[in-house]
């Protein structure tokens, strides 16, 4: 596993709080603005960054991230330019882990070995590939193991007890629990169901558990932060970019994302304290 990621979760454990994971799309709305967004995230309270790289056919994403991918492609974004962003981000930040998230085909075209070594050299810490289930990720797994990138697997409401070991075998970094059966950013996660799913996964692995896909509000983030080791928010952040672009104020996107991350990360940080105070 990447040391940055290991240290991040160790620190979170020490301070007895969940981490906040911010998902944004590389090159959305354009390369330079997305670099500004990335640079603003750690200061606003993001403990980990998930950086999406664009694909024309994002079949597991809802409308928000679909639009983000289209904007990114239109501005010339690609897997290569996403790696370039990581490299530039690392010029000023050595601590915040970055996880690359996207679909298999851009990696297939770059080659799994080339991808893993470029990603590692650029300063990425892990990778989540939505359409590479355990049955299909052998090539990626070989290369991530060789380079020390974490291979983060997804568990979902349809991953039953019989299948869970298959998902966990070979996983590293953390487990990403997809809290709803659906695409990103559409259905809302039910905290009760999430709690029992997190407990079930915890019984089967030592890895930290991050929860995402249906989390948009500070209330939802806070509820999940009581159960999970990290909370992921993506579509809500990406929507800030969408609105800024629609109002012809793309330059405001970094500030808008920053403010929302402040609110959400504060809710995550305060979640267990509040619970302690109530009790």
């Amino acid at each position, binding site marked *: 596993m990447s040391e940055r990621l290991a240290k991040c979760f160790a620190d979170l454990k020490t301070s007895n709080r969940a981490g906040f994971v911010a998902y944004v799309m590389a090159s959305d709305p354009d390369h330079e603005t997305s670099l500004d967004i990335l640079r603003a995230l750690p200061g606003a309270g993001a403990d980990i960054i998930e950086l999406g790289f*664009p*694909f*024309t*056919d*994002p*079949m*597991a*994403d*809802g*409308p928000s991230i*679909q639009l983000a991918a*289209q904007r990114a*492609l239109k501005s010339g974004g*690609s*897997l*290569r330019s996403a790696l370039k962003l990581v490299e530039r981000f690392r010029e000023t930040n050595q601590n915040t882990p970055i996880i690359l998230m996207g*679909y*298999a*085909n*851009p*990696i*297939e*075209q*770059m080659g799994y070995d080339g991808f893993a070594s470029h990603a590692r050299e650029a300063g990425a810490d892990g990778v989540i590939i*939505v*359409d*590479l*289930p355990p*049955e*299909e990720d052998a090539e990626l797994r070989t290369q991530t193991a060789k380079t020390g990138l974490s291979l983060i*697997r*997804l*568990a*979902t*409401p*349809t*991953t*039953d007890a019989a*299948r869970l070991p298959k*998902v966990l075998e070979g996983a590293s970094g953390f487990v990403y629990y*997809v809290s709803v*059966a*659906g*695409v990103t950013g*559409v*259905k809302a996660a039910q905290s009760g169901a999430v709690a029992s799913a997190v407990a079930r996964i915890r019984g089967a692995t030592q890895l930290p558990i991050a929860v995402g896909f249906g989390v948009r509000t500070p209330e939802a983030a806070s509820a999940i932060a009581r159960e999970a080791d990290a909370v992921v928010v993506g579509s809500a952040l990406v929507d800030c970019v969408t609105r800024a672009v629609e109002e012809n104020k793309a330059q405001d996107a970094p500030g808008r994302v920053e403010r929302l991350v402040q609110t959400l990360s504060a809710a995550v940080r305060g979640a267990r304290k509040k619970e302690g105070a109530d009790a």
Partner: protein
Amino acid sequence: MDARRNWQDLPDENGRFGAYGGRYVAETLMPLILDLDRAYRAAKASNEFQAEMDYFWRDYVGRPSPLYFAERLTDHFGGAKIYFKRDELNHTGAHKINNCLGQILLARRMGKTRIIAETGAGQHGVATATVCARFGLPCVVFMGATDVARQSPNVFRMKLLGAEVRPVTSGAATLKDAMNEALRDWVTNVHDTFYIIGTAAGPHPYPELVRDFQSIIGKEAREQILEREGRLPDAVVACVGGGSNAIGLFHPFVNDESVQLIGVEAAGHGIDDRFEHSAAINGGRPGVLHGNRTYLLQNADGQILEGHSISAGLDYPGVGPEHAYLNDIGRARYLSATDNEALDAFQLCARLEGIIPALEPSHALARIGEIAKEIGKGGLVIMNLCGRGDKDVFTVSEALEKRG
């Protein structure tokens, strides 16, 4: 070529045809496609399921479709005898219903209560809406908004049959986006929904089960030609978009090594780096899309390109993984025909045989003369006439006017 191999044994248990195929789907869908795989194995072994298929194929679809000797076309080219497998005479006017029937019977066995499908030109959408009406299941068809606008008669047919047509505006709003949207719906409605995929692509087991359901075409053709001519044909020929009609014709002949398997892709405005074609094998590279690894139209960064064909049914940036494999091992070969060549063949077939073909098989027709001459007099060729051209008459009239 590996002469000892039994090609009919593919795919393997992981859904692989050599390097192609597989199950490249989100984890949420994995348990569902594993479940579908188990259900399909059980159905395949069930006599009752087979009897049900046979009944509906005969009395509802109108199978077996005839094998017709295209005598005037044969005389015109002066080469091998040309036979048409007449799947355009099926209920709904194309081969698509063979597969829809199989999948909806499977859905019923699995206790699924809601059907979704994607469609480009609307032929698969109409066939799906048809079987949903027959079995009383609600049906949602995803169709690119661009296609909804240019295929309005089929949109109306689907609505008449009780289906809901949902226009898809994401991406370029065509077939591949409709397929993305259907996958998104499936991932959201995992418990009650069955996704009827229309072509021999998608995650395993779809390429296999679509092939098996469409293999009725080749099985019948093989029996019919043996009865008529007392021997196997020298070549079987079909158009290839995703490739479901072609794999259905090829599969029962795949171990007959004397029989050439020939696919014809859509070359659109020509196969070059403008990518104004839909010839994934002739003009694409291997990659991963819609759950399988196969040949795709894509740029250097792995972004999928739209492509083009005058035939909406061939206008897809990928091809079924079994075709990718048959191409690489040299068991099948894949030619192509441009929009203009297909238009010429469309007219020739109408005038010489009194059959108005769909634009899809018009691509196969465009190469049939050369193939018949190459094989020569005394030879036998079967071409799958997989759809009728009623749906295309306006497109053709417009294109001919433009061409002048």
